[in-house]
C-alpha cells in the first residue's frame, strides 16, 4: 500500500481537471440490523459474515485487513488521508474494519454507515474502470454473503439516499479557474439541478482546500448501474470539465502575465519555505497544478504534484517520520518534503 505501488496517472484521461474517479457499492448483510442499530455482538457478526468473502482463493482481490479498533489513531488517520476509509469510519467506535487491496486503489469498509462499502479509485476520469473493479469484488462477495435485498427497493441500505443499486460514482475535480473567475456558484447550481452532490477534497466542509470539488450522483434508484455510469460519464462530468477548461483559457487570454506570476511565485515559495501549514500548502499546490496543466511550468511532473496533496497531510508526515510530530514539527517536515519534491530538475 505504498505510494510507489499506485498506478502512475500521467496519461489518465482528462487528468488536467479530473484528479481521480471513484465507484462505490453499498451493501448490507441480510438478517442483521443496520450498523447504527446493531449492538456489539451484531456488529461482530457482520464482520464474521463478510471476512470469508475476502479469502484470496475466491475473492477477485488480494487484500489486507485492518481492524480499526485495534490499530492506532495515527494508522486510522493515514487510511483516511489516503481516501481508503471515511472520516466517520475513522472516528466511530465499535467493531469495524477495512480491507485494502495491495495497490491501495480499492477498499472494503465494514461497519461504516452500511455493513459493507466497497470503493475503487483510479486517476483521471475512469469511473467505468473503478466500477468494473468493485463489481467484481461484489460478485465474489455475493458467493459467500446473502445481501439484504428488497423486491421493489433493491439493495437495502440504512439511508434511503443509497437504496436501489447502492452505486455511487464520484470524481474529484480541480477547479481553480472557476474559483478565480468566481463562476463556481453556477456549477453548484447546475450540479443541484442534475441531482449531484458537490463536496471538498476530504468530504463535507473541506471545500476550500486546494480548490478540489467532488461531484457524485445523488440518485441511486430507478436506473441500472450502466445507466448511472453513462449519465455520469457522458453528461455530468464533461460539462463541468469543459467549463473549467474554458475558464482557464479565458484567464490566459485576459492576463497571461498575471497568471504566470502567480504560479511562479507560489512555486518559489514552496521551493524555499522552511515551515508551512497544510491549508497554505494546498492552496499554493493548487495554483502550481493549474500552471502545470497550462504548460506554464515544465519541470514538475503532474503525478508527483497529485500525490503531494495527500503526502503533505499531517498523518502521512508522521507516518514517514515514524513518530508523532508537534504542529511546528509537522510544518517543518511538510516544507522539507515540498522542497525536495518540487526541486527544479
Amino acid at each position, binding site marked *: 500500500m505504498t505510494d510507489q505501488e499506485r498506478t502512475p496517472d500521467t496519461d489518465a484521461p482528462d487528468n488536467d481537471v479530473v484528479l481521480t474517479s471513484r465507484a462505490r457499492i453499498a451493501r*448490507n448483510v*441480510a*438478517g*442483521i*440490523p*443496520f450498523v*447504527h*442499530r446493531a449492538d456489539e455482538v451484531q456488529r461482530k457478526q457482520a464482520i464474521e459474515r463478510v471476512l470469508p468473502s475476502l479469502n484470496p482463493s475466491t475473492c477477485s482481490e488480494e487484500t489486507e485487513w485492518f481492524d480499526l479498533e485495534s490499530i492506532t489513531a495515527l494508522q486510522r488517520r493515514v487510511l483516511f488521508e489516503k481516501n481508503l476509509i471515511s472520516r466517520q469510519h475513522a472516528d466511530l467506535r465499535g467493531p469495524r474494519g477495512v480491507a485494502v487491496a495491495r495497490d491501495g486503489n480499492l477498499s472494503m469498509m465494514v461497519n461504516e*454507515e452500511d455493513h459493507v462499502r466497497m470503493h475503487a479509485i483510479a486517476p483521471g476520469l475512469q469511473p467505468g474502470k473503478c466500477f468494473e473493479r468493485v463489481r467484481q469484488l461484489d460478485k465474489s462477495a*455475493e458467493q459467500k454473503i*446473502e*445481501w*439484504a*435485498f*428488497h*423486491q*421493489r*427497493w*433493491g*439493495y*437495502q*441500505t*440504512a*439511508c*434511503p*439516499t443509497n*437504496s*436501489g*443499486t447502492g*452505486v455511487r460514482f464520484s470524481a474529484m475535480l480541480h477547479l481553480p479557474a472557476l474559483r478565480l473567475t468566481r463562476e463556481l456558484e453556477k456549477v453548484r447550481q447546475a450540479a443541484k439541478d442534475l*441531482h449531484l452532490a458537490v463536496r471538498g477534497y476530504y468530504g463535507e466542509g473541506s471545500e476550500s482546500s486546494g480548490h478540489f470539488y467532488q461531484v457524485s450522483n*445523488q*440518485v*441511486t*434508484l*430507478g*436506473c*441500472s*448501474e*450502466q*445507466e448511472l455510469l453513462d449519465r455520469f460519464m457522458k453528461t455530468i462530468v464533461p460539462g463541468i470539465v469543459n467549463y473549467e477548461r474554458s475558464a482557464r483559457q479565458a484567464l490566459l487570454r485576459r492576463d497571461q502575465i498575471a497568471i504566470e506570476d502567480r504560479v511562479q511565485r507560489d512555486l518559489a515559495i514552496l521551493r524555499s519555505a522552511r515551515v508551512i501549514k497544510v491549508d497554505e500548502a494546498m492552496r499554493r499546490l493548487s495554483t502550481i497544478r493549474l500552471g502545470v496543466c497550462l504548460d506554464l511550468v515544465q519541470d514538475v511532473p503532474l503525478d508527483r504534484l497529485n500525490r503531494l496533496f495527500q503526502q503533505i497531510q499531517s498523518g502521512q508526515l508522521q507516518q514517514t517520520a515514524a513518530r508523532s510530530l508537534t504542529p511546528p514539527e509537522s510544518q517543518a517536515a511538510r516544507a522539507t518534503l515540498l522542497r525536495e519534491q518540487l526541486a527544479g530538475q
Partner: protein
Amino acid sequence: MKCDQCDRPAIVHQVIISNGTHRETHLCELHAAEAGVPNPSKQPVHQLLAKVAQKPKPTGLATCPGCGATLAKIRKTSLFGCPQCYDIFEEAAGIMIESAQAGATRHVGRVPGGAESDEARRHESRRLVEELDRAVHAEQYERAAELKSRLSQLDNQHPHADREES
C-alpha cells in the same frame, strides 16, 4: 402520468383497441393490485404487482421487530434500522425513498445472483417500458400495442425471467 384513482405515479397502462376506438386506464401499483391485473408473468410491465398483492397488509406495529426502531426514530435520523423496516413502515418508507431519489419508484438494475445476460435484458426491457410510457402519453396507441408485444416477446425469450422477482 398519475393514477386514475389517486395521485401516485401510474405504472400500469392498459390500452384496449377495437375497431379504431380505444379505452385506456392508468393505475398505480396499489390500485392495479386492487383491480386484480391478470397474470403478471405475461406482462413484464406489471411483473412486480404479484409480489405487491401478496404482501401482508401493514400491521400498524409501533416498532420494527427486526431492530426495535419506531417510525418517529427513523424519521428523526433519516435512517432505517434494518431491512425489515422497509416493509413494516411500508408507506412511510416509500415516501422517504422516493423523496430521497428524485421520485424514482423502484429498483432497476442488478439483482443478487443475476447473470450478465439478465442485466442486458432488464436494460432493454426498461427502455421499452419507458418508450411505452411515452407512446401512451402521446396517445400513439398503435405504437404502444407494438411495444407491448415486443415486451412480451422479450419476456418469453427468457424462461427464467421471473426469477429476479421470486
